């Protein structure tokens, strides 16, 4: 099977300033790549360029197909779930269930099929109880899980996750982690959460000066101290 994502010599300029400069990347079918980089390094731009939302020069190949025009990208997008950095950009339907149904409906499923897929995806993330809630009034962590459910309901082969743990508390973070660990496809993970990256990724890269530099994930015991908050004794 061809690599789901293959980039070669990618260049992106935003507002006249180069953001990506000759970036290359290949992602295998079950590979889990973590990308780290400072604010403004171009991580979001890179993910957008992969799905053709950001104009770029160089070559983008998705599932072995060279993508240049909007139509090429549009054909590949249903197989690539893109979790936007800001959940509010993704949630636009009144209720959670409608929003999660949106992707399957775009794939041509009937309303009943879409609803079944949506219910399954929500249950898989442990948030079935949110189905009838108003989407834009959820907490940050709940929004994140609902956004992810909206992608998983489409049964994608690749997930692109832009800071998935942003604004997620410990309990929802554990649900997120479990769902991603169980995801069988390939994924690219942009995150500052070192523990999250270390336990999910099989490979890491640093985005620096518009290119990807291989990085090492190492796991070693630290003795550390940090402040904790607990309920005070009455």
């Amino acid at each position: 099977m061809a690599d789901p994502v293959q980039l070669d010599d990618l260049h992106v300029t935003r507002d006249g300033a180069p953001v990506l400069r000759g970036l290359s990347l290949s992602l295998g079918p079950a590979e889990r790549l973590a990308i780290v980089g400072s604010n403004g390094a171009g991580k979001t731009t890179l993910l957008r360029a992969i799905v053709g939302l950001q104009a770029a020069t160089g070559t983008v190949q998705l599932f072995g197909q060279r993508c240049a025009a909007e139509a090429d990208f549009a054909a590949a997008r249903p197989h690539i779930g893109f979790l936007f950095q800001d959940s509010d950009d993704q949630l636009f339907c009144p209720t959670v269930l409608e929003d999660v149904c949106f992707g399957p409906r775009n794939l041509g499923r009937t309303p009943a099929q879409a609803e079944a897929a949506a219910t399954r995806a929500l249950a898989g993330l442990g948030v079935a109880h949110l189905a009838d809630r108003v989407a834009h009034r959820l907490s940050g962590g709940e929004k994140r899980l609902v956004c992810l459910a909206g992608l998983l309901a489409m049964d994608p082969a690749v997930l692109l996750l832009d800071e998935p743990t942003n604004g997620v508390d410990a309990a929802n973070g554990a649900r997120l982690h479990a769902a991603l660990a169980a995801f069988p496809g390939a994924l690219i993970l942009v995150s500052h959460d070192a523990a999250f990256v270390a336990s999910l990724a099989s490979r890491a890269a640093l985005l620096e000066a518009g290119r990807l530099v291989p990085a090492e994930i190492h796991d070693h015991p630290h003795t550390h101290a940090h402040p904790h908050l607990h309920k005070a004794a009455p």
Partner: protein
Amino acid sequence: MIPADPRLRIAAAFAAVLSLSQLTAMPVAALACAGAVLAAAMSAGGLPWRRLMHLEGFVLMLLVTLPLTIPGTPLVRVGPLAASAEGLAQAALLGCKITAAVLTMTLLLAGLDPVRLGGALAGLRVPPRLVALFVATARYVETIGQEAARLRDAMRARGFRPRTDRHTLQSYGNLMGMLLVRSLDRAERVEEAMRARGFTRHLPLGEATPPTGPDIARATLIAGAAALLLLGDRAWPILSS
């Protein structure tokens, strides 16, 4: 030729558009239109082609529909419909007036920063609430536009492609609804943040300085030219009879 003071620009534009809207004689309207085109072509920005293209599309529609809907001497017959000479004349007159007015506004107002435009409106004694509304709108239109663009991107990323079906209509409906809801939310947050910083219904818009002499002369010239056009327009039936 164009005054630098935003207040004078607005006043001159207002006077010019007011007289342009009152023109009734075709030759005078044509003269005004030609003058505006010439002035725009000679200005630093040149002719605003994009804006003109949208505008002339609308004018073209008038040219097609008015002759068919205004009764009068038939020029050509298209099946059961007759195109009247009166309708064509009306459409041509309107086209000239609209083009002249839009070019004048572009020439006088397009270069103004929205925030300075707000200050200028306040200087012209426009009620402060209206000014605040205008400044906030000018500031947030772009933000809301960006928000809409990101929502649309996210929809595309999930495989959305506009078609002529129920799902597409429903999705666009949801998109509009969400934009509205979020704009209201944002308006509330912005208002709270403004109040938190001590806002009391009056935007601090900078000190007003009196307009300079040359600027007043320029604005008077523009307003005078507009008045002259109006005078010519009223005199035309007498002159041509």
